[in-house]
């Protein structure tokens, strides 16, 4: 019984526990509650993923209303991978959050923080599991609204403006998706994605569908911060609390990419999206620009957190580049990139959070000689950085490898060069941090700095460990990603 309802539980557990959390006024209790919930969520996600891995796509009808009238939860391989990722990141950051949040957020807001966090988790998981287009919009908004709150809790007042800007952009993006969904409904009379996929081919020649496609594309592009609609992202990540930056970087934009995969492949079908609408070429161009421009900005950036934010924009570009190839290899590469980047960026932002905790600043010039005082933190940062660059034996290498070989297989070798050149740019901006932390003489204020607490270091190193493990043995993630890609592209062929 319990097992059968797993898809629902995945969303319901955090959804229900969020208001409960609000009742716990004591920050410590709120933290304990949120930790418990996120652990349960992870357990559910693992069980779900196991089932999907073993049995294939799961379909679950909410309230036992049969599809297409009721809302369907549908988890295929791509979805399983995503919930696993989101749940895992969500669980891993909780032990970390306790110290970090206590340091960065006013005591009276802490309960609010955990509540918003649980809601955000709900939203992200919901986006993944739902098979209903409108439901997708709702979950998207749940996650967005809660993340505006999370971001606004940042320690400086600029967090407020960043959150506001994100709110405006996010709302427009979500509303665009809503318009698209509405137009689709108008033409097909259904909101169930599987159903939509079956009915759409009859009406793809209409302008309405094309307009719907345009709205959806732009809306999703905003949510996943694709160049040039990424402008909300750097500030949001920079001024959000460290935990939030890590969580958002690892999950929120990834969920956006997932929505894109879902809509382009499952709903519209790759035939329509890529062959008729040429969205592949457009995305490739934008991805190209994203990779180059954002990497360059990151190179010049002095605030490390902002640097990582821009790096995220570039990394989203890579993911989209893989997807834009619309081949199995490309989509596989995109998905692997997505997962690995979540692991990398999560670890990097968390490591930076440790720095912020002890140093109170994350600018390069304040970090001179930091490695002597925070060796474990900086070692984690370097390991994560190497992964970001794409050094062998790290997850980043695996994703770059697949991406480059997919790009080469598709015959776009200049793009392969671009990927490698921007890896070099990544090397430069990571190296600036390494040089500051390892090879510069520490300032006088550095004496008081000591290593971050274990409760924060362990999550960081956990993520780094996964990173390194994936770098050595990527077979599991590869097989999952390939299955996911096969399912996504296969659906289009049906």
């Amino acid at each position, binding site marked *: 019984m319990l097992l059968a309802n797993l898809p629902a539980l995945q969303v319901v557990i955090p959804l229900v526990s969020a208001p409960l959390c609000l009742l716990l006024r004591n920050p410590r209790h709120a933290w304990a509650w949120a930790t418990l919930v996120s652990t349960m969520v992870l357990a559910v996600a693992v069980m779900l993923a196991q089932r999907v891995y073993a049995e294939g796509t799961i379909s679950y009808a909410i309230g036992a209303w049969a599809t297409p009238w009721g809302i369907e939860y549908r988890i295929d391989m791509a979805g399983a991978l995503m919930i696993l990722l989101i749940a895992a990141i969500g669980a891993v950051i909780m032990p970390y959050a306790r110290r970090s949040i206590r340091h960065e957020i006013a005591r009276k807001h802490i309960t609010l923080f955990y509540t918003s966090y649980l809601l955000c988790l709900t939203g992200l998981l919901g986006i993944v599991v739902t098979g209903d287009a409108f439901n997708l919009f709702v979950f998207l908004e749940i996650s967005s609204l809660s993340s505006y709150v999370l971001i606004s809790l940042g320690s400086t007042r600029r967090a407020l403006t960043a959150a*506001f*800007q994100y709110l*405006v*952009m996010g709302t*427009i*993006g979500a509303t*665009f998706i809503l318009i698209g969904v509405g137009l689709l409904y108008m033409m097909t009379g259904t909101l169930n994605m599987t159903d939509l996929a079956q009915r759409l081919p009859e009406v793809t020649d209409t*302008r309405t569908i*094309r*307009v719907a*496609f*345009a*709205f959806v*594309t*732009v809306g999703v*592009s*905003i949510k996943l911060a694709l160049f*040039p*609609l990424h*402008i*909300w992202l*750097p*500030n949001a990540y920079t001024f959000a609390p460290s935990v939030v930056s890590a969580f958002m970087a690892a999950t929120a934009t990834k969920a956006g990419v997932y929505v894109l995969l879902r809509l382009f492949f499952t709903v519209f079908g790759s035939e329509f999206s890529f062959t008729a*609408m040429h969205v592949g070429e457009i995305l490739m161009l934008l991805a190209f620009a994203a990779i180059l*421009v954002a990497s*360059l*900005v990151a*190179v*010049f*950036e*002095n*605030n490390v957190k*902002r640097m990582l934010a*821009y790096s995220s924009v570039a990394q989203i570009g890579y993911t989209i580049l893989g997807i834009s190839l619309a081949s199995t290899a490309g989509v596989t590469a995109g998905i692997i990139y997505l997962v690995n980047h979540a692991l990398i960026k999560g670890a990097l932002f968390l490591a930076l959070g440790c720095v912020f905790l002890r140093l109170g600043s994350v600018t390069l010039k304040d970090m001179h000689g930091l490695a002597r005082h925070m060796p474990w933190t900086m070692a984690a940062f370097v390991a994560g950085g190497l992964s970001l660059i794409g050094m062998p034996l790290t997850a980043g290498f695996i994703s770059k490898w697949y991406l480059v070989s997919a790009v080469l297989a598709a015959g776009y070798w200049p793009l392969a060069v671009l990927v490698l050149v921007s890896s070099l740019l990544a090397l430069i901006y990571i190296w600036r941090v390494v040089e500051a932390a390892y090879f510069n003489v520490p300032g006088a204020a550095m004496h008081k700095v000591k290593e971050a607490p274990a409760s924060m270091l362990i999550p960081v190193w956990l993520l780094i460990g996964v990173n390194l493990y994936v770098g050595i043995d990527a077979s599991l993630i590869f097989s999952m990603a390939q299955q996911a890609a096969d399912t996504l592209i296969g659906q289009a062929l049906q």
Partner: protein
Amino acid sequence: MTGISAIPPGLPLILGALLLPLLGLRIRAALVLGLPLLTLALIWQIPDGVSLRFTFLEYQLEPVSGDRLSRLFGTVFAIMAFAGGLFALNRARTLELVAALVSAGSAVGVTFAGDLITLVAFWELLALSSALLLWSAMTDQSYHAGMRYLVIHLLGGVILMVGVIGHIADTGSVTFTSMALDSPSHWLMLAGFLLNAGAPPLSAWLPDAYPEASPTGMVFLSAFTTKTAVYVLLRGFPGADILIFVGLYMIFYGIVYALLENDMRRILAYSIVNQVGFMICGIGIGTELSMNGAAAHAFAHIIYKALLLMSAGSVLYMTGKRKCTELGGLFRSMPLTTACGIIGALSISAFPLTSGFISKSMISQAAADETMAMAWFLLTAGSAGVFLHAGIKFPWFIFFQKDSGLRPPDPPLNMRLAMILCAFICIAIGIWPAPLYAILPFPVDYVPYTRAHVIEILQLLLFSGLAFFIMLPYMKRTLTITLDWDWFYRWLGPRAINGLTQVLSRWHTHRRTDFLRHLGHLFGTLFLYHGPRGILARTWATGSMVLWVVILLGVYLVAYYF
């Protein structure tokens, strides 16, 4: 295969020489004189054929392989090492003696090398030790001359090496036997050999380098390098026609340049080229007689050239002067030196009763026997020219001519002894050629002292003498040098390389500045747009963000709607 006969005879010289710096003065002297004698003894117990073999890399080496020819050259090298050592004893720097003995050892090593790899190894060692010998004069000129010498000889060495490798690749054999000029590798080997012989066009290294050695050093230098080349040519390329022309060129090159020269030792250096020319000509003719002649001439030449250089060295040692224009009239205070110099001069001119007479005439006789008219006439003219440039000119300008006012005494005892030794050998061979003829590579039935021949030679030489004195006004010494092929590597080469590197470095600097400037521009541009305050990095107003959304939406809509 085993025992004493398996010791490479050059080895004691080389290894012993390396001990010299560690020893006291007396033992050092004993070693300098003793080692050549030991070598001589070793040489004469080496049987015909290969007496030492071992595998090196993938080849069978035969570093000790004796026959009549190698023994002949080995003998004269050992004698020369002894005489030179005696001359230099207690006068030269230890380093010079080390270098001299190593080069003697290398030369002996070459003569007993049965395979080409050993040959190349000793060949390079000879070049190195000779350069060291030059450098041990410790002057700036000797440094530059030594560098030039070394570079030229390394060039020869590596050309030879390429030839040898090509030969091995072609034939699979490393044995050093006579070769025909039928493949590029053999031509390269010939080129390598000839370079050491002082053949054109790279003959200028010899008069360029040798005269910069110390007074004692040049005695050694003159003996080994060129004569080793004569030896390998005798063994490797007997009867190669081209050698006749090369030899003739060298003969007249030596004469003409010597006539123009002012430096006494440079005159003698040119005359080395000239004399080696006779030998190479003999090798080119390629009959048993001419080969014997070349070998015998090499033997004789080493001794009398050493004698000439000893006398010149004594003058330099005692006066510190080397130019004809600064010397003259020394016969008054240096009688022994003068006498020895004259004996050397007569020998080189092949006057009857001297060693040159019994060896050189074999070569022209061979040319006549083969009815090589041009070769014969030119050889004869060359013989006359030898007397002109070395036989008279050298002693005349140094010891007689005007009175320079210098009154140095004869040199120290060991130097005198060395000169006397050489002079004795010159005369002895001239009077009693049989022992030398007995050790020549081929059986000799040549009789030098016929009445006709003696008279002919006397006519030839004496009338050249007449010509010398008649033309004396035209041979006034001037403070000049004469351009040679070395202009290309002394004047043009350095300037070319200098210019080239300068152009390159300027180009590089320009490129670098250009590159850096462009890089700076690029960086500036990138920074303008991507820097923290750049348009792409700074915080935008919400309105602009939304504007972009609208624009992008518009683009999509326009693209898709129509």
